[in-house]
């Protein structure tokens, strides 16, 4: 799954997700890819979030909505990301998933559970894309 957030030059934010879902799923099964608030969410007053993982579980918790709303309440991205993931892990200790969070000041962070996660960033001060690794 790719989940992407973009701030354009005006500071407007958009997010998007695309996936072909779980392998050997029961036909008709849909994960959290197309669910706003789970795989991705954005509010240009606050920031944005992208997620990946076990969609059957994650869509029950809407981690990206949680991340953005936590940032709205003042949480820094890394705390908001960790908090959203920990809420899921508390109920499903074996779940696999990750989020990245970015606020409108451009501060970003990631959090994950059940696997090591990487996210990529490109911003004006970089010459090329930079990859960040997040461990559970």
């Amino acid at each position, binding site marked *: *799954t*790719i*989940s*992407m*957030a*973009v*701030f*354009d*030059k005006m500071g*407007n*934010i*958009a*997010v*998007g*997700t*695309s*996936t*072909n*879902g779980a*392998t*050997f*799923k*029961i*036909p*008709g099964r*849909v*994960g*959290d*890819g*197309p*669910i*706003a608030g789970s795989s*991705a969410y*954005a*509010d240009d007053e606050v920031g*944005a979030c*992208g997620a*990946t993982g*076990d969609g059957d579980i*994650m869509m029950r918790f809407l981690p990206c909505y949680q991340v953005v709303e936590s940032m709205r309440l003042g949480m820094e991205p890394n705390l908001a990301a960790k908090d959203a993931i920990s809420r899921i892990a508390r109920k499903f*200790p074996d*779940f*696999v*998933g*990750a989020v*990245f969070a*970015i606020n409108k*000041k451009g501060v970003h962070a990631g959090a994950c559970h059940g*696997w090591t*996660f*990487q*996210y*990529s*960033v*490109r*911003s*004006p001060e970089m010459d*090329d*894309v930079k*990859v960040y690794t997040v461990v559970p």
Partner: protein
Amino acid sequence: MAATHLNSASIFLLTFSLLFLVMGHEASNSGQYPVVVSTWPFLEAVRAAWRVVDNGFSAVDAVVEGCSACEELRCDGTVGPGGSPDENGETTIDALVMDGVTMEVGAVAAMRYIKDGIKAARLVMQYTEHTLLVGEQASAFAISMGLPGPTNLSSSESMEKWIKWKENHCQPNFWKDVVPVDSCGPYHAKHFLGSSHGTCSKTTLMENIKSRSSHVGRHNHD
């Protein structure tokens, strides 16, 4: 009189510098844009989005371009056609786009025969008042709005993977509490002898959690 003049001049100067400060802050703020962030090291997708947004296009255009790049390149196999076959060997696409300014959303789910997932999602956002279209109706919508299709979204790799899975008695799979347990379907509900009270289902629950974690992972997820 002179004092008043002095007063108003200093107030004017103060206001002007404050304004400048705020503007300056804004200016330095806007220095940190644009920004592209993506799950996983999908470098080409981020570069594709960056080219669009760095040339002054909108955040929505950049997201669609970036995710489309992964749909074409297939990235790690979990995006776009040719990956993640279902139990029938078919690949379908889920996609979403959200505008963080207007809070508008467009999405497609379990979309068949159409490879351009996020472009279809954007069409839903732009030309309907809905949020999510699913299945073959989403495919029909996408074709009617000009996207190419119908196309077979399977690939030789996904078919090969699927055939091996069938030969391995359809294991692992996403069924629970059904029989047969260790072969392909059709499946029927497993009827417990005696009660359906907590204890029996408790152990099955634990089994389910353990079995679930065995096949969701880095190459099998959303």
